[in-house]
């Protein structure tokens, strides 16, 4: 008897700023839409544990897409993309997400992303608070300089291994070896876009001085960071959350920068706490 997963994959074609993208996404569950963004240079398999977690999917419609140029989402089909350097910007990233959610006719989803996905979650809370029920920025901060490096795609090195082993110690040594190597394997597959993603992460994303303008009554912000994250260490996230009026920070012990992928059972404990907070906040703010 074949062992099928309840997770189903589909493609949807969208137009973002004149770029035509055929976007691949995985989906499972029923209830409040929970849209998930993978980390830079990676793809939606990072959310494999969440997508198959029956405790979550009983109440949430979990959707994990591949950002354009990642995984099974191709580069733009209407552009000679190979003739220009890929440098992701906050505006294009946000437009991609909001248009993707509109294409799927999602009603005020919760948005969760890790690393550069966490940083764009902060951007969405500031610029599109009414389009999202809440955001969960994971491993995020107001500013994350230092990772926009030429070494990620240097022609004299094996870029797949450089990217995969370069992020190896973003994970906690306690995380299961199988999951860490699985994450390593994913990272061998995105070497050509990693640096371009990091243009957003380390260069274009800079929310210093803007966090006070986030209205968490319209869009609650629940930030979570692992203690082994050296890129956005816990104090960076905590400092970010503290500047957001009503912002909440949850510290995750003994886990790193890819919590959903490197140790899902541990991440799930914290995620359920975050979702519970959102349930309470959105229930109390719903119109009578």
């Amino acid at each position, binding site marked *: 008897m074949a062992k099928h997963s309840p997770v189903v994959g589909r493609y949807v074609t969208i137009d973002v700023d004149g770029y035509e993208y055929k976007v691949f996404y995985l989906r499972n569950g029923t209830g409040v839409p929970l849209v998930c963004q993978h980390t830079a240079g990676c793809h939606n398999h990072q959310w494999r544990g969440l997508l198959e977690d029956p405790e979550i999917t009983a109440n949430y419609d979990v959707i994990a897409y591949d950002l354009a140029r990642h995984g099974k989402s191709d580069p733009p089909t209407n552009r000679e993309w190979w003739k220009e350097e890929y440098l992701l910007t906050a505006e294009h990233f946000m437009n991609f997400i909001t248009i993707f959610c509109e294409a799927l006719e999602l009603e005020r989803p919760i948005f969760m992303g890790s690393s550069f996905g966490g940083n764009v979650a902060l951007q969405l809370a500031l610029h599109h608070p009414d389009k999202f029920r809440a955001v969960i920025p994971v491993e995020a901060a107001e500013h994350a300089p230092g990772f926009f490096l030429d*070494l990620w795609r240097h022609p004299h*090195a094996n870029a797949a291994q450089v990217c*995969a082993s*370069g992020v190896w110690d*973003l994970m906690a*040594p306690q995380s299961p070896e199988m999951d860490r190597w699985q994450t390593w394997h994913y990272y061998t597959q995105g070497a050509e876009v990693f640096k371009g993603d990091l243009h957003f992460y380390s260069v274009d994303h800079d929310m210093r001085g803007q966090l006070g303008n986030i209205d968490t009554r319209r869009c609650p912000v629940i930030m979570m960071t692992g203690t082994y994250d050296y*890129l956005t260490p816990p104090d960076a996230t905590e400092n970010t959350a503290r500047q957001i009026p009503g912002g909440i920070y949850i510290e995750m012990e003994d886990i790193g920068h890819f919590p959903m992928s490197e140790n899902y059972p541990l991440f799930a404990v914290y995620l359920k706490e975050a979702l519970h907070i959102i349930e309470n906040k959105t229930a109390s703010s719903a119109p009578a």
Partner: protein
Amino acid sequence: MVMSVRDWAVRFSEASDRDQTIGAMAKYFTCTYLWDMGTAKVIVEMIDGKVYRINVDPAPMDAYDFALRASPQTWREFARPIPAPMFHGIWSASFRRDLKIEGNTLALMQNLRNFTVQFELLRKVGVPV
């Protein structure tokens, strides 16, 4: 009691040469690097995935491709079975602690997969400081 650097070199060579993860992709793992632990310094010469030589008493003009330099305390933290946060790798310690990575970093990147595995052998082998 701190192990001697000579004993460390023997243990490290054996651990590296027997490591299956390195052995699975060892063919072109070739580079020479310095580990400066403050009170001990070694130059490890790798050829095709095997430890060819460990110089336990480097002279000033002895050559290497790249170097990792940190305090003895940081190297002792690297060698814990489960290192504390920010001591759990060369990237974390260079971003957040006193580890300095110097020299030809491209050579490090060319060998990064195996070098990273080899660095974590310190958790089993220990350090001579």
